[in-house]
């Protein structure tokens, strides 16, 4: 039984009331002819046709780049000041259930021992509103990684679309309940009697994939020498695109950007945390010239290990949510599910 009802025509009102209170309303909208998560100001900007936005909404908690400290180097010495993030009330509307499951994975890394408050303070103020999928494409494989378009993990408010384009509303978390209560003018108490829910589309589970077998294979350190890695991943060109669109990829670099450096001239600059990717050859390159992951297959293997071994084993969380973005974006058509299948077949 749904808790509430949301009319399509009331979304504009919801956007306005979130924004009037100083918040951000992020939803799938077109940019460069494709659906992406965008900060929108009116319901007209919503893309009605999307399956899954091209980018992940992880950037709402883990931006592509952000300043973590400012410094000035002057005649009187060094001034250094860390940045604060208070976060901003943010609603992501129309997220897909696969992706919602990824936030707790990111959180598990960013709170492992040391708490990265740049991430957690943003997440604390993020409300995730998912819409169950009525469309899928060939790259969707959530069901293969034990999720589904009906999953509500990581979702605060879960919506199901009706034939009329309205939504049945399920509050999932306390945060979601509070959000609905706050916007009770648009979240109506009762659905119309004639509301019919659109059929949910279930991507077919890839039969050849056996997550248990993959886990076992990866847990055995001997698998590192298995020829399966160079064989299957030889065509990877190391562009890193898969990592940037992946909702669970968390790697970053810390760099300085300054107006000048050295000499007697005073200068100022910022220290930044930027997305990085384990697919790049200099990612693990030592100062000595030694590189533990000196060839592309080792870097690809690391990414696969991260998804199906490190995340589940270290953090008991999902490294892959089956959103399929890495498959759609790959310029050489390296399909992660093909590697999953091939490894599942190994003895």
């Amino acid at each position, binding site marked *: 039984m749904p808790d509430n009802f949301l009319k399509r025509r009331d979304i504009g009102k919801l956007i306005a009331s979130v924004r009037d209170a100083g918040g951000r309303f992020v939803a799938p909208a077109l940019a460069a002819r494709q659906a992406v998560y965008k900060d929108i100001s009116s319901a007209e900007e919503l893309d009605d046709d999307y399956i899954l936005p091209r980018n992940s909404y992880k950037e709402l908690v883990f931006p592509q780049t952000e300043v973590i400290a400012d410094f000035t180097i002057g005649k009187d010495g060094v001034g250094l000041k860390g940045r604060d*993030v208070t976060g901003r009330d943010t609603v992501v509307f129309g997220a897909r259930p696969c992706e919602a499951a990824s936030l707790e994975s990111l959180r598990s890394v960013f709170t492992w021992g040391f708490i990265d*408050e740049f991430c957690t303070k943003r997440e604390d103020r993020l409300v995730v509103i998912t819409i169950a999928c009525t469309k899928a494409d060939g790259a969707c494989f959530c069901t293969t990684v034990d999720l589904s378009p009906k999953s509500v993990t990581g979702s605060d408010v879960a919506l199901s679309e009706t034939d009329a384009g309205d939504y049945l509303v399920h509050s999932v978390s306390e945060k979601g309940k509070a959000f609905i209560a706050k916007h009770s003018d648009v979240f109506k108490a009762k659905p119309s009697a004639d509301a019919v829910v659109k059929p949910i589309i279930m991507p077919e589970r890839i039969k050849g994939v056996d997550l248990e077998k993959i886990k076992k294979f990866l847990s055995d350190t001997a698998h590192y020498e298995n020829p399966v890695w160079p064989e299957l991943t030889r065509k990877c060109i190391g562009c890193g695109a898969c990592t940037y669109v992946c909702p669970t990829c*968390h790697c970053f670099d810390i760099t300085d950007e300054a107006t000048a450096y050295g000499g007697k001239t005073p200068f100022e600059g910022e220290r930044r945390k930027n997305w*990085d990717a384990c697919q790049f050859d200099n990612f*693990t390159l030592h100062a000595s010239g030694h590189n*533990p992951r000196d060839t592309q297959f080792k870097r690809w293997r690391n990414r696969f*290990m991260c998804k199906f071994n490190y995340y589940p084993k270290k953090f008991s969380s999902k490294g892959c949510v089956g959103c399929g973005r890495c498959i759609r974006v790959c310029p050489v058509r390296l399909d992660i599910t093909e590697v999953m299948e091939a490894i599942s077949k190994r003895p």
Partner: protein
Amino acid sequence: MNNIYLPQLVTIEDIYEEAPDVRSFRLVFKDKFLRDSFEFKTGQFGLYSAFGLGESTFCIASSPTRKGYIQCTFRRSGRVTGGLYDLSIGDTMGFRGPYGNCFPMDEWKGKDLVFIAGGIGLPPVRSVIWNVLDRREDFGKVTIVYGAKTVADLVYKNELEHWEARNDVRLVQTVDPGGETPGWKGKIGFVPAILEETATSAENAIAVMCGPPIMIKYVLNALGKLGFADEDVYTTLENKMKCGVGKCGRCNVGDIYICKEGPVYTAVEVKRMYNDF
């Protein structure tokens, strides 16, 4: 907000020329409270900032038995280390840490110790050596086997002389074949082979080593031949790091994050690792 990436400011109190392109800095915290209260354990590391260029990871090369300062030793090899190298006494830089685990030195009381280091792998081992020498009576025999490519590349030359002169330390120095000078009195050969030659007893002994990955692998073999059990052999692994706190994703050896679960490991743990370093 607690900003885990925010360094502390430190002043370079002294600079030591160690070898070509290798320098040590003696660093003190600008903040008085931190200067008095800062604590670390032998084996831990930090991230050192050249503001405007970025951060690099090195071990803390001084011993926690020496209070009031920390020391780092680094080779000029990239952008950040190049920038650090250009700094002068009195300049300010950044430090984050201490991070990582440490050598379980309390468990080693009464045991003999053999230290093995290659090239710029000596700094982390040096922290242990001084920790031992500063409370010498707690430990048994001390043997140090140290090698570098050439005589010039040996770091801490003053301290090597000091250790050489002590009668409670056995120091064996070596250089790679071709790296010797006419007056060289030490050995000529690679560290693992020289280590075997020393015939150091494994009885009631602990081995501590640091060096390039290839050296670590061969030294493990040599220690095995000398009869050392894997659980009595310690090493400190280094990998490229950016955050130092288990998030940036590059120092992992398989599923093990060096920054969080290391950098100190026993040979038992090293042998269980994925072949990824």
